[in-house]
């Protein structure tokens, strides 16, 4: 029973992490295309790299040279929608991580 609970917390964390990383990738790809940055998918992968969101910071620094040139309302709404999904993903990660810590302490 104990280990089932541990597996549940790890699964919650992983689901949250995968969902968040995927949303970051998609947001970066849309944003890079709107700014006319070459290789938007590569930028998306770069943004998802790093342990503590270093990739996003690198992307934010890199894209400063490229102002948004072509983005439509649909893409803007899509970015906002994906940010909200990323928030849900982060909440999953928090629940999973806190549950994991409490579980380890109880052992």
């Amino acid at each position, binding site marked *: 029973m104990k280990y089932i609970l541990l597996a549940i917390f790890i699964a919650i964390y992983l689901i949250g992490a995968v969902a*968040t990383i995927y*949303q*970051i990738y998609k*947001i*970066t790809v849309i*944003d890079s295309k709107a700014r006319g940055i070459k290789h938007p998918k590569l930028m998306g992968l770069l*943004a998802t790299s790093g342990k*503590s*969101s270093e990739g*996003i*910071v690198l*992307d*934010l620094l890199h894209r400063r040279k490229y*102002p*948004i*040139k*072509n*983005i*439509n*309302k649909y893409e*803007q709404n899509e*970015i906002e929608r994906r*940010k909200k999904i*990323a*928030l849900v993903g*982060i*909440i999953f*990660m*928090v629940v999973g*991580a*806190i549950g994991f*810590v*409490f579980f380890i*302490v109880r052992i």
Partner: protein
Amino acid sequence: MDLGKKIIEMRKNAKLSQGQLAEKLDVTRQTISNWENGKFYPDIDALVKISKCFNISLDDLLSYDDKVLEYLKDSTNVVKSNKKLLYAILLNTFVIILFIIVGITANESISIIVIVFTISIISFSYLFYQIIKKL
């Protein structure tokens, strides 16, 4: 009259095609088409270029469409979001210091370590979300 129609009118008066105007403003022809059809609004940088291109003041240009003003207010309100990011960074710095202090002082107190762990997870997640919001 909305801004899109005004751009069409000014472009036609200047006898420019969408492609020629796009070249002057350093954007794509599709962007000009989207502005004219009201699919999305030009940002402040583009508005300055338009005002220079057609020799019209920004004040006059913006007075045609209240929605553009609303859009600019929303898109340029970076002060508020930057404040949140700054608070998140300060909170994380405080938590790291707290972590070090607890690591030195609370040798056997597991409950204190768990509480600090929990706070650090929440504060880091808050910072992470604030960074994502900047995307």
